[in-house]
């Protein structure tokens, strides 16, 4: 476990890839208002739904994971996601901080 914490996100992505996992890289590419993670923050997701890193401090990660799994399922290679201020009906996919973020997800391929 300790070793995992010390690994960088990209090294972890490579390790997953080398052990035959499908890997998606998600990065924050634009932010408006107050958002917890700056542009360039990254997170990786594999086909088992495991993830590492962060793009929002917990607000939209679950949704990003689902989007990544969908990307794999649909055999696409990249997609842009947008998240806005949360409303009461969608607490699990909104940003409580009132910010907006754009996230770019892409598959790692050989």
């Amino acid at each position, binding site marked *: 476990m300790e070793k995992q914490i010390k690994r*960088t996100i*990209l090294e972890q992505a490579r390790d997953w*890839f080398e052990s035959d996992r499908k890997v998606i890289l998600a*990065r924050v*590419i634009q932010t408006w208002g107050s958002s917890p993670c*700056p542009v360039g923050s990254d997170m990786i997701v594999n086909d088992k739904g495991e993830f590492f890193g962060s793009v929002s401090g917990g607000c939209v990660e679950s949704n990003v994971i689902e989007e990544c799994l969908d990307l794999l399922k649909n055999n696409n290679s*990249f997609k842009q996601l947008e998240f806005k201020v949360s409303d009461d009906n969608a607490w699990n996919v909104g940003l409580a901080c009132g910010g907006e973020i754009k996230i*770019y997800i892409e598959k*790692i*391929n050989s």
Partner: protein
Amino acid sequence: MKLEILNEIIQKKSSSQNFALLTNLTNGNSEIFEFGKFLSNDFESYKKQIENYHSLKKNGVIDGTQIFIQNFTKPIEVIIVGAVHIAQYLVDLFKNLNFVITIVDPRKFFITAERFPDVKIINDWPEEIFKKLETDSNNALITLTHDPKIDDPALKHALKNKFFYIGALGSKKTHTKRCQRLKESGFTQEEIASIHGPIGIKLGGKSGPEIALSIVSQLVLESNKLLLNSKK
């Protein structure tokens, strides 16, 4: 993104180079950018803007384009003089921050791989070490021995080479004497005042880990100021 690009980033990061990852958001192509490097058709026509963002260490979608640039910049190199117990706590605290650490001490009983696993250690006098190390304003110096014959040459080198952060452990009394010695060696008042001494922000703690935390906090604060100023 292709695996070879991922591998290239990992390799470049470990050799502490400045570069950027470019991504064309319309077709998903990625490429590594460095100054002077030839770019493919996806990016070549935006070269000027890319260079501009890269010099400013600015991450983001370049205005008016669908090009995303993420910069990877050389981490700050911190040289710690004195392989004392506070240095051990410093290494722990620096672990998750983007700094490269080198510890130097001429005293062989202090500077051992057992006491400092996973960091670069050099067992020699700072004067000798600085003859070989390449240093500039991307460096920080922390002196911990409060022994003038070990600390002073390091402080002088750091002042001359414009390290962005210089901090020296020692009481106010020790620091006053240190400033006096530097003045006698010909350093200006302004240069001497740039040394953080006594080192660290005021946390009120006296234990080793607390002192280390106050030092790390001060260094992070100063490095963030540096980054903000470069973006203005």
